[in-house]
């Protein structure tokens, strides 16, 4: 409702009001919001009606929501049963106290929960570090290598004093994070290869890449996962099994790569032909031309669609529940299977949604920062 012109208008109006009333300074602070409201919210009859309607809506929704979620909520229970929640009228956040371990870590062995917790903390810390430009040094690559080894050791165990935990028992937030992160990291280079391949002059490569992208984009992710997890083992010889998590990860990676490839191709097409011709004139080889001239410009252009795909990939991990993996959402559902706590399913889903939102919001804000950071001097 508030347009930039309104702000200017408002500022002018406020200035008009201010001048004659300098002598009575305190009155300003009272009248300023009123005049702002008058010029912005009630400047015409339809606008006034809309404002009143919005206020009514807020009045109808916000107080009940606050009283449900905050004032009347049950925050903890002493006896481990839901009786206190049943008597209360508000939200039952005590559910989190009772079920957080199952929701966060799925069926990972209970006494070993510190391992996925630590692994998740390491990954998040590494992500936060890598996000800052001042840490973009070669050492960061080695740090990641070390982090991956440590995280794998924590999750799998099996040596140096940790008991072995097979991937079938992994679950919750570490699984969601791991699937999303590995899916993105593996899909990204693949997508660049696919995008370059689709623009290649070599007919065979072009046909394979185009065929792959169109085939994978033509089916929903659930069917890719379903094929990877249910149909694929039927064709393997007896006795040969491939880890379920690995199959789901492969499915997600191949799927995400096809979508990302199209975003990357969009960036490649936006680079003027002259850039490539200039690189050719310098005598650069194909790969050096791409690496030094075309891709840095192209990828910077398509940060928004790429991050869009990352966010979508992160949320798509919740689909792995159909192949029997406990991601964050499936673990939440498993926690809500307990009939004692099932009436409070809304609270469980709200909590899971918050976790998803935190990660997705971070990705989105970071991409905006990255766009500004990388676009210095090259704004079009």
């Amino acid at each position, binding site marked *: 409702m508030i347009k930039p012109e309104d702000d200017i208008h408002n500022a002018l109006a406020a200035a008009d009001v201010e001048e004659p009333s300098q002598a009575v300074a305190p009155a300003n602070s009272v009248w300023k919001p009123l005049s702002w409201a008058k010029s912005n919210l009630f400047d015409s009859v339809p606008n006034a009606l809309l404002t009143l309607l919005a206020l009514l809506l807020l009045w109808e929704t916000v107080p009940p929501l606050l009283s449900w979620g905050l004032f009347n909520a049950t925050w903890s229970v002493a006896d481990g049963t839901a009786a206190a929640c049943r008597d209360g009228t508000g939200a039952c956040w005590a559910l989190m106290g009772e079920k957080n371990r199952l929701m966060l870590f*799925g069926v990972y062995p209970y006494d070993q929960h510190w391992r996925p917790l630590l692994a998740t903390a390491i990954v998040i810390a590494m992500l936060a570090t890598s996000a800052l430009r001042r840490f973009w040094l070669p050492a960061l690559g080695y740090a990641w290598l070390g982090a991956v080894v440590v995280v794998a050791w924590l999750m799998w165990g099996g040596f140096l004093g940790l008991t072995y935990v097979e991937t*079938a028992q992994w679950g919750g937030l570490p699984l969601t994070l791991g699937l999303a992160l590995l899916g993105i990291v593996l899909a990204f280079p693949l997508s660049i290869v696919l995008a370059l391949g689709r623009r290649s002059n070599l007919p065979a490569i072009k046909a394979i890449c185009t065929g792959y992208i169109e085939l994978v984009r033509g089916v929903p992710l659930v069917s890719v996962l*379903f094929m990877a997890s*249910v149909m694929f083992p039927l064709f393997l010889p*007896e006795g040969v099994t491939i880890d379920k998590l690995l199959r789901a990860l492969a499915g997600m990676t191949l799927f995400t790569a096809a979508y990302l490839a199209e975003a990357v191709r969009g960036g490649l097409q936006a680079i003027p032909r002259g850039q490539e011709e200039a690189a050719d004139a310098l005598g650069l080889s194909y790969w050096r031309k791409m690496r030094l001239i075309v891709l840095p410009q192209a990828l910077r252009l398509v940060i928004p669609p790429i991050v869009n795909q990352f966010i979508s990939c992160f949320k798509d991990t919740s689909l792995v*529940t159909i192949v029997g993996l406990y991601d964050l959402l499936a673990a939440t559902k498993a926690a809500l299977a307990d*009939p004692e706590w099932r*009436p409070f399913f809304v609270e469980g889903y709200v909590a899971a949604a918050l976790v998803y939102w935190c990660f997705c919001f971070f990705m989105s804000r970071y991409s905006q920062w990255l766009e500004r950071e990388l676009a210095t001097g090259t704004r079009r």
Partner: protein
Amino acid sequence: MKAFKACAIAAALAVTSMPAWAGPTVDAVKAKGFVQCGVNLGLYGFSAPDDKGNWSGLDVDACRAVAAALFGDASKVKYTPLSAQQRLPALQSGEIDLLARNTTWTLSRDTANGLNFTVTNYYDGQGFMVPTKLGVKAAKDLNGATVCVLPGTTTEQNLADWFRANKMTYKPVVIEKNEELASAFIAGRCDVYTSDASQLAAIRANEMPNPADYVILPELISKEPLAVAVRHGDDQWLDVVRWSLYAMIAAEEKGVTMANVDQMAASSPDPEIKRLLGVTAGNGKALGLDEAWAKTIIKQVGNYGESFDRNVGQGSKLKIARGQNALYTQGGLMYAPPFK
């Protein structure tokens, strides 16, 4: 969901066109040292991870019984949680050895899907729950009622069939999620809630502000025998699974419990108990198991009645009455052939 169904059908076709998988499952399971058991992702009372991630439930007990018979240790089970679409191909592909995932025994699953059902470990059936204040005494009184039902399930189909067969009309209130469906019923958006009787009992006991305000009607409109399944083509494995489950039922019939099994084995004069517990040798050899196999099952998992009480009966949060799942001697359907 369409893609889902297409894939499921494709999977089913692929399965049927493959030769029945034959092989010595017992040896393979013994060699790897555990039973790979397909279970539900989370159905309280049947198979669900508890707050500490440990599995429990009636179906889980079936897996544990087989492990106890094979290894003398009920904990030698690895669980593979499966979605409804996944469960049949998972068994067919050899990913799991045993399917104990509240699966209804039907003709098509028994034949075209390449499964062999062993023993029904829970007799379920679709029922109706209504508020007591409506004064409905029988399902026939439900003409014109508003019915809360989960879409896209056999439940919805059974409901339509039953009302049509009885020349009655109803108005469906279709909601995708179980929890929301229960909330809608409590809020009075429909007169009747229909689901499997076990689910109705669970909802009545746990989600109703006052359970006495609701009554589950006595009629069941469908047969849902939930049974444990194995692959076609391995009869020895089929026998081991089948008799492991029968042993639990026979033990209840003979009054052998977790607590008294040792004493029964030592001193019972009953020849049937002696054969069941391996005091009189023969059964173990016939199955290719240790003679104490059934004794181990009862000692570690309990008899069927104990398992029922602990997981879905009075000892659990579900408080489901035995009903059809009582022994045949008590008006139920649970019946084990003789251990001879």
